[in-house]
């Protein structure tokens, strides 16, 4: 049901530019205004989201440790320990690098199966593989697209393009490897949302929709390249214009509706991005269980809203138990005096701690 609704939304999104450009000829609306507007929403939305997270402090240093801590000098720490239980900043940076670039934690994935009364854990790297295929391909495809927004095209991008299409045998234009890989990755990620009962059970519409949308983008891109050939020269004129803030719809040349569909879906994704789970792309950098060092006992972490709390003092304790302590022969401390201390509590009206300073 969720999947169906998501798919219908995608179909509607495809029809909008189809009618808009194909029938109503609103080329500049779909070629210039909407892409700009959506890109603006993307940038502002993402900045807003980052500020929104950054506004809340990280009160405690709470790394999840997956390797040996740094303790006694003779306790050996392997490279794995350093990366999974980082003590120094460079170790934290490497840990984050592995998480973000190679999805380290996902690589750990296991599958649990219950056979009668026996629990068996097997390796389950498929999700990792699907995720890697999808994310890396997407990243390379995005880089490749820079050739539409630059002039002259940097040799690095040209080189990437060359590498990506080195299987030249399948005709002209050459097939991009990443096109195949991203489809494989996306298909896997989508299928497991249908087939894996657990994942299917916890998937919302908002989990299917981005998958469909990205598949829509990829498919429209592939169709444009291999089937409905568009006027590449005109496309580049438009995209370069967009990139240099000097946009214009190329006169005379018919770019082709498929291009506008592709562009509109990309724009939709950009605008949708900051308000969806897709913000995990930026959020992962902020994750306190991953980006903090496991050195709590050596380097103090300061909480900006820490406040003094009410607690019982030894003097009060000793007063209450003086008799039994004396009887048991526990030394009595005659030097202690009762002290009052300032305290706050979030549970007592009027005793609330001072406003959080960040």
């Amino acid at each position: 049901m969720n999947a169906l609704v998501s798919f219908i939304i995608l179909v509607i999104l495809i029809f909008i530019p189809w009618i808009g450009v194909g029938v109503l000829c609103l080329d500049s609306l779909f070629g210039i205004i909407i892409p700009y507007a959506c890109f603006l929403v993307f940038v502002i939305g993402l900045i807003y989201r980052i500020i929104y997270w950054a506004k809340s402090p990280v009160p405690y240093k709470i790394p999840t440790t997956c390797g040996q801590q740094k303790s006694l000098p003779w306790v050996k720490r392997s490279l794995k320990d350093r990366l999974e239980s980082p003590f120094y900043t460079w170790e934290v940076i490497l840990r984050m690098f592995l998480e973000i670039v190679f999805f380290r934690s996902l690589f750990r994935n296991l599958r649990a199966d219950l056979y009668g009364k026996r629990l068996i854990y097997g390796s389950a790297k498929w999700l990792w593989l699907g995720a890697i295929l999808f994310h890396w391909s997407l990243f390379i495809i995005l880089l490749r697209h820079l050739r539409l927004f630059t002039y002259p095209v940097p040799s690095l991008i040209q080189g990437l393009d060359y590498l990506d299409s080195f299987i030249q045998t399948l005709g002209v234009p050459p097939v991009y490897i990443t096109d195949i890989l991203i489809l494989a990755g996306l298909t896997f990620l989508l299928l497991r949302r249908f087939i894996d009962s657990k994942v299917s059970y916890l998937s919302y519409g908002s989990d299917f929709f981005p998958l469909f949308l990205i598949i829509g983008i990829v498919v429209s891109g592939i169709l444009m390249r291999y089937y409905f050939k568009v006027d590449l020269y005109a496309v580049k004129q438009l995209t370069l214009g967009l990139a240099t803030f000097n946009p214009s719809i190329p006169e005379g040349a018919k770019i082709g509706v498929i291009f506008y569909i592709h562009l509109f879906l990309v724009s939709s994704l950009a605008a949708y991005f900051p308000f969806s789970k897709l913000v995990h792309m930026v959020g992962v950098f902020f994750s306190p269980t991953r980006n903090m060092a496991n050195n709590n006992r050596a380097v103090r972490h300061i909480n900006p809203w820490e406040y003094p709390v009410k607690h019982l003092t030894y003097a009060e304790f000793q007063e209450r138990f003086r008799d039994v302590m004396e009887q048991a022969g526990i030394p009595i401390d005659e030097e202690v005096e009762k002290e009052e201390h300032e305290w706050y509590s979030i549970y007592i009206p009027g005793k609330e701690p001072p406003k959080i300073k960040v």
Partner: protein
Amino acid sequence: MSLPKPDELIADVNLHKTPEKDWMDIKPELKKGYYLGIVDPKILEELDLPNMGKWQPYDEKWPLPENWKEIVRKAILRRMEMHRSFKLFMDICVRCGACADKCHFFLGTGDPKNMPVLRAELVRSIIKGEFSTFGKLLGKFVGARKLTEDVIKEWFYYFYQCTECRRCSVFCPYGIDTAEVTMIMREILLELGIATDWGIKPVHNSYYIGNHVGVQPHTFKENLEFLVWEFEEITGIHIDLDKYINRKGAEILFVPISGDYYADPGIYTMMGILVLFHYLDLDVTMSPFATEGGNFGFFNSFEMAKRLHSKIYEEAKRLKVKWILGGECGHKWRVWNQYHNTWFGPINFLEVPKSPITGTVFEHAKDNKIVHIVEFTADLIAHGKLKLDPSRNDHLIVTYHDSCNPSRAMGFFEEPRYILKHVCNNFVEMPENTIREKTFCCGSGAGLNAGENLEIRQRGGFPRANAVEYVHKNYGVNQLVCICAIDRAVFPTLLQYWVPEVDVGGLHELVANALVFEGEKSRDVDLRRRPLKHPVKGVDQPEE
């Protein structure tokens, strides 16, 4: 015990089948044996905490305060302002499902709401439904729903079916930590006045008496006297206890865990620690007030946790010690390691810990001046300061349970293994995917070790017990060693049910078993009077 037989208990678990109905449409049904009782309101009052009067979870209508919705909404917003973790974790989950079968409660119940992702969705859906415009507009399609009284029941039910063990956080590609979510959600429930009997009574005890179990100072001493007496009976070695209690000017303050001077088998760990102190003639003392290293406050709210442990530093100051040594405990070390320094620092009145026996400076603890007793002992062994005879543990085939929090909130893996390898000859690891950072919880942590929720405990402990059963069957393991007081309190019940042939004990019990004393007498039993494989020849039985 009214539980079905072990084979039958989990017969209803199917990890690959989900309910017909959408989870949002399944009303919370509070099953007996799964939830905890509610605490007497007087206890909450005495701790300056809100309460809802006398009631129990099975009541049809919960006596929520009139403005409960307002309280909850405000509490959520406040927590998002206070904790970036919470705010972020509510935003970035992609529901990839990597965490789904990592939770011991899911593995033991098959209940989808025990998948960490859905546990977090229980509140994520409310945040979307109450505070997000898109969420309000699109509802279920984006996983948003409205705050109702049923939601509160659901929260209570499922956030007390999480032991804050952090196993899911190891596997999450974004490091989303359900423990963090659970801790915050329990805080929010507490703001309404919802608190469990088993979770709060120990807090009350620890606050007013000094430790969770409410052992008063004279009883504390009596219990230790019994241990010392028992040790003397077995080995003939006399330990003078007086200097270890409330003596000012000692070098080290030792903070024990109440479970270790309260009940079997924890007491043997405490005995082992006292024996070690005596063996080393260590200049150490204990406070009669700071008699609890564990912290049940942490299972209710950050503020409560801080209120309980303030006494440790006050006592260190009063007793004029140089540094603090902490006993074998699980969540204690989450709190001590990750929170103490922030709460109570900078701790300038203490010195950087230095072992008076080996001269080792504990550089990694230089700022908060707290050392784990296992680190301390491992250092002793590494410097050859203990005369150990591991064959005295030959009657045991030992496996080691990595307690959740020392593992995943500290990275404490090698030190205990190092000690084990020196104090016993038969040490077997459990299967790879159930140890170290992937270790399974005992199923009863975070304030869940009560009687009324025994079924969920046995189910939650099933994955761990299953791994123990494996090494028991294949290698004849008969002793589970752990460094957590809750483990020592709950594993006997858990293993009695699943693998009855395996005993449970702490690490320092085995250390003391293996320690060779000058002038000890002959014995043919270990420190808990189990027969030894090779009887010890003492001074009363000179070598021929």
